[in-house]
C-alpha cells in the first residue's frame, strides 16, 4: 500500500527524460494520436467521459488510498461545480443563469465546489472508518433531494440544460477533438498532481495519519487539519472534473448527482484499484466500455438490455470478493506469480 519510494542515489534533474519509464511514453503517444484513429463518438462518449469519471474517481482514490477516508461525496462535489457553471454561466433557463462569461463562471464554480467539499470533509472527519461512508452518503443523498426539490436555484427535477463549452482562442471546445484534448490535459494534470502530492511532505504525513493517526498526533501533526486539507485537494480535482462533465453533457440534472452515480464512482475506484492513481482511470475506462456496450452484449446473449445494472453489480461483487484492491491488485498478483519459480516457489530476480 505504501507508496513511499526510496530516495534517489544522486540528484535527479527533472528534465532528465530518460528516467521516465517506457510505459509512460507508449501510453502518452497512444493518447495523443487517438483522435487520428478513432471516430467522434468513441472520442467523446468513451474517452472524454472516461477521463472525467476517472478524475472524479481519482479524487476518491486520493482520499481512500492515502487517507483511508472512503468518501461518497465526490460525485456531489463534481455535481456542485457542474450546477455552478450552469448557474453562473449560461443555460436555457435564463431566469436562473447569471450569464457570466466562462472565465468567471468556471473558476468560481470550482471554488464553490472546493468550499462545499471542504465543509463536507470537515463534517466527515469528525468520525472515522465506516462512519465516514455513512455520513458522506447521507450528505450526497441530502444534496440530491435538495436539488430535486428546489426550483428557485436548481430548477428542480429537470435541472439546467444547454450549458455549452465555450469558444475561445478561435477553437470551439465543444467539438469532439478539442474537447478530448481538454479533458486529456486536465486528467493528466490531475494524475501528476496526485502523484506529486502523495510524495510531498503533506502527502507523506497524510499516509502516516492513515497508518496510525494517534502516533502522528503524538508527533505533533495536526491530524484533523491534514484530513480536511486532503478533502480540499480532492475537491479541487472533482470540481474541475465537474466543470468538464457539464460541458460534455451540455446539461446537469439531479440524476447527475443521485446516489447511484455516487456509488458508481466508488465502484470505479475500487474496481480500478485504490493503491495507485492510475487505478481509477482503468476502472473508469472499463466502466464506460461496459456502460456503452453492455446492452449489445446482453442482447447477444438473449437477455434484456436493461439488465445492465445487474451486470455491473455482479461484476463489482466478484471483484470485491476476490481482490479487494481491484484490477491493479490482480495485475500485481499475476506479476508476482510470474516472477516466482514454478518448481521451488521462490522469487526469482527480474
Amino acid at each position: 500500500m505504501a507508496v513511499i519510494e526510496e530516495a534517489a542515489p544522486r540528484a535527479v534533474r527533472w528534465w532528465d527524460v530518460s528516467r521516465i519509464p517506457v510505459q509512460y511514453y507508449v501510453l502518452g503517444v497512444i493518447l495523443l494520436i487517438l483522435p487520428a484513429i478513432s471516430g467522434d463518438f468513441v472520442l467523446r462518449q468513451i474517452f472524454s467521459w472516461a477521463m472525467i469519471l476517472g478524475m472524479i474517481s481519482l479524487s476518491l482514490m486520493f482520499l481512500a488510498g492515502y487517507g483511508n477516508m472512503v468518501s461518497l461525496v465526490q460525485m456531489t462535489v463534481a455535481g456542485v461545480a457542474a450546477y455552478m457553471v450552469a448557474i453562473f454561466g449560461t443555460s436555457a433557463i435564463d431566469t436562473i443563469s447569471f450569464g457570466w462569461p466562462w472565465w468567471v463562471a468556471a473558476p468560481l464554480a470550482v471554488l464553490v465546489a472546493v468550499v462545499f467539499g471542504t465543509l463536507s470533509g470537515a463534517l466527515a472527519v469528525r468520525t472515522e472508518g465506516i462512519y465516514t461512508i455513512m455520513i458522506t452518503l447521507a450528505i450526497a443523498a441530502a444534496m440530491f433531494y435538495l436539488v430535486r426539490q428546489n426550483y428557485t436555484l436548481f430548477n428542480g427535477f429537470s435541472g439546467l440544460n444547454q450549458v455549452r463549452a465555450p469558444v475561445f482562442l478561435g477553437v470551439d471546445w465543444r467539438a469532439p477533438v478539442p474537447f478530448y484534448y481538454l479533458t486529456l490535459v486536465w486528467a493528466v494534470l490531475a494524475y501528476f498532481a496526485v502523484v506529486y502530492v502523495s510524495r510531498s511532505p503533506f502527502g507523506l504525513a497524510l499516509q502516516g495519519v492513515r497508518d496510525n493517526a494517534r502516533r502522528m498526533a503524538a508527533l505533533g501533526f495536526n491530524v484533523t487539519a491534514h484530513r480536511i486539507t486532503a478533502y480540499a485537494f480532492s475537491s479541487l480535482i472533482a470540481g474541475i472534473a465537474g466543470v468538464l462533465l457539464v460541458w460534455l453533457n451540455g446539461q446537469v440534472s439531479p440524476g447527475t448527482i443521485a446516489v447511484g452515480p455516487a456509488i458508481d464512482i466508488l465502484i470505479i475506484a475500487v474496481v480500478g484499484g485504490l493503491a495507485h492513481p492510475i487505478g481509477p482511470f482503468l476502472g473508469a475506462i472499463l466502466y464506460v466500455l461496459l456502460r456503452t456496450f453492455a446492452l449489445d452484449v446482453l442482447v447477444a446473449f438473449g437477455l434484456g438490455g436493461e439488465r445492465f445494472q445487474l451486470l455491473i453489480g455482479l461484476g463489482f461483487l466478484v471483484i470485491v470478493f476476490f481482490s479487494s484492491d481491484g484490477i491493479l491488485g490482480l495485475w500485481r498478483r499475476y506479476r508476482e506469480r510470474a516472477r516466482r519459480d514454478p518448481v521451488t516457489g521462490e522469487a526469482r530476480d527480474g
Partner: protein
Amino acid sequence: MVRFAERRPFWAAVIVLAVAVLLWAIFAPWPEALEDVVGRKKIFLNALFNGITLGALYFLVASGFTLIFGLMKNVNLAHGSLYMLGGYIGYEVADATGWWLLSFLVSFVVVGAIGVLLQLFVFARMEGQDLKQTLVTIGISIVIADIMLWIWGGDFYQILTPDWITGPIELPLITGISRRSGEYIYLTYPVVRLVILLAAIAIGIGMWLVLNRTRIGMLVRAGVDDRDMLSATGVRIQRVFILVFAFGAGLAGIAGVIGGTFQSMAPGEDIRFLLASLVVVIVGGMGSIPGAALGALLIGLAEQFGSVYAPTYAVVLTFLIMVLVLAFRPQGLIAVRR
C-alpha cells in the same frame, strides 16, 4: 430527571417551557392572530401526527439497522433493499390471499431468512473487514434493486388496507371553532396511521423488554459491549449474530409492508429509506435502540414540518439536524455507553 434539573436549571426550565407551549398548541384552540401568522391549526396538527407516524416507520427500519450495527459492527447498506423487498412481498401476499396481517408474517420470515443467508455467506466470511463488507453490501443492494426492478417493474404499488382500519377517525383534539354554530371542530385522522403508530410503539417496547429482561437480550447487550469477551465465556456468538441479523432484517421487511400500506412502493424507495436509517442512526447514536427512537421521531417531524412550512428546504432541515448533532455530539444524542 431531578438530577438533570438540579445540574442544569436553565435548560430544564427551557425544556419545561417548550413542552408546555407544545401541549398548549396541541390541545387549545388557536387564537386568530396566531392562525394568521403560522397558518391553520389543522395543518399544524396534521403535520405533527404525520411526522410522528413517519417517525414510527423510520424507527422500525432504523432499529434493525442499528441493532445489527451495534452488535456486529457491520454497516449493512443493503438494509434499504431489504425494506423494499419486504414491501413487495407483503404486496404479493396481501394481493393473493387478501389477508393484510398474513403479509406481515410472510414478509418477516422471508426477509429474515434472507438476512440469515447474508450473515452466513457474506458477513461471517469477512468479519472485521469494514470496507469490504460495506462494498459487498453496496454490490448486493445494486443487484437486489435490479432484480426487483426486473420482477415488479417501475410501477407504484400500494398495499390495500383491510376494511376494519380503513377510513378516518375523529380524535379529541380541537382544530378550530366553527364560525356558524360556534361548536368545536375536531381533528379527523386515518385509522391506519394510528394503528401503525401503536404497532411501532408496541414493537419498540417489546424490543426493549426482550433486550433488557430476557437471557437472549442479555447476550445481545453483552455482545454489543464486548463481543470478544462474550465469545470467550463460551457463548456461541455466531448463533447470536445470525439471530440478531434475522430479526433486524425481518423488522425491515415488516417496515416495508407498513411503508407499502400508508405510502407506496416504487424503485428508489430503497435508497430513501437507507438514507433515512443512516441519518436516524447518526442522529440518535449508533447501536442504540432508544437513540433510534429519538432520532426517528426527530427526523420524521422535521421532514413533515419542513414539507408543510418550507417545502423546498425540507431535506435541508433534516440535514441540518444531522450537521448540528455531528458538530456538537458526534457520538449521537443517545450514545451507547463504552
